[in-house]
């Protein structure tokens, strides 16, 4: 269990939670998130081949639709 107010048994009555302020802080740059020569987190290591393939051929990437009506 996560501590989230939702429940496995779904007894309802969830509240939307506290109001969050918005930030104008820029997102970290890609190079800050994976510095050259850094050892990636193992989870990121799993994702890197696909990410690298996209970086090598960005024009070939299109946005697919996935939905479940």
């Amino acid at each position, binding site marked *: 269990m996560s501590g989230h107010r939702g429940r496995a048994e779904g007894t309802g009555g969830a509240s939307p939670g506290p109001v969050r302020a918005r930030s104008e802080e820029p997102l970290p740059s890609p190079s800050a998130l994976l510095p050259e020569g850094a050892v990636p987190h*193992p989870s990121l290591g799993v994702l890197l081949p696909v990410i690298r393939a996209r970086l090598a051929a960005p024009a070939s990437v299109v946005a*697919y639709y996935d939905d479940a009506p």
Partner: protein
Amino acid sequence: MTGAFRQFVLKVHSRCNLACTYCYLYQGPDSTWREHPARVDRATMERTAERIAEHAGRHALASARVDLHGGEPLLSGPEAVVRYARTVREAVAARAPGCRLRFTVQTNGTLLGRGSLRRLSAAGIRVGLSLDGGTARLDHRRVDHAGRPSFPAAERAARLLAAARRGEEPGIRPGTWAGVLCTIDIDRDPVAVYESLLALDPPSLDLLLPHANWTAPPPGVTDPGPVGRGPRATPYAQWLIPVFDRWWSQGARGQLPTRIRLFEEITALLLGAPSAVESLGHSPPAAVLVETDGTVERVDSLRSAYHGASVTGYDVLRHSFDTVRAAAWPPPPPAAVCRGCPVYRVCGGGNPSHRWARLPGGGTGFAAPSVYCADLEELIRHIATVLAEAARRKDTDPANPRCTLTN
């Protein structure tokens, strides 16, 4: 608009045997589905296949996705799905032999027995299951028209697909299961939902924000506040972040237990790569939809905005997909506030369907931030923080080679 369609969403059957409590298609503002025949006929299949082949040949497509949808596509039985796929495959082989097609049927799983699965698998059609949780209680919103739960039948389908994945179902290829599409229910514990679905062993898991907009707010949000990028509660980020943290931590041994597209796409975008989903980032849209009568439409999710939102006025009998794309495919422009937002390079304004609003200047349109803007920002910043913390760590794992984004 330049470019080509690379994903064809084909309606096999436009009715559903379920009445999910949150369904935007049959319980939302759009009712154009009533105007379409329940089943696609053979002539429409053939004409659609010819148009796809024409498009693939004209654009020399190396690959394309064909998604067989409903309603519930298996209401016509597996043979109709197989026939549609075969018709498209034959037409494309004749006119665009270099184009590799990937077929998937998206189903609620209730009609998916061993015989159906063998038939689909033999035809090279993968199966995507719609399932909101891995127990009856977590999946409680997916019910039939009499209110009976669909979970027992859907679970049987999931277990068959999982057994096939392990090579334990003769006649069903291990790669037949495409994955699970799960629409988020914030009234359920997120990690319980995630772990219960993981127990079914799907190869991928898509966590979908329920289709909503500024005039029809998300479940659990009674008032989204003024249209724009203002302070607001973030119940969907609060739901997703524990799932991300659990999933991310499970990659500690160099493998992730399943793919979760939402998190993978945000990670890719943060690292500067383009996205492959329409709900994030800035990549050109790939999808077009063909109804059971051959009318060409924009994607179904737009129907959650207003009656007729997906209609183009074109059809495969009279119009090529190039004609449709050139004349009827303006993507919704981003809101002005989005263009100046520090998160825009990742969120891309969010799912177009979620931007529908009564605009401050009057009228209605899609030129608003996503109604999930605050949730998306919080999730994206959380993932950025996790990546940044990992990058700062000095400890190294000798099992993982040193690397850069480009090696």
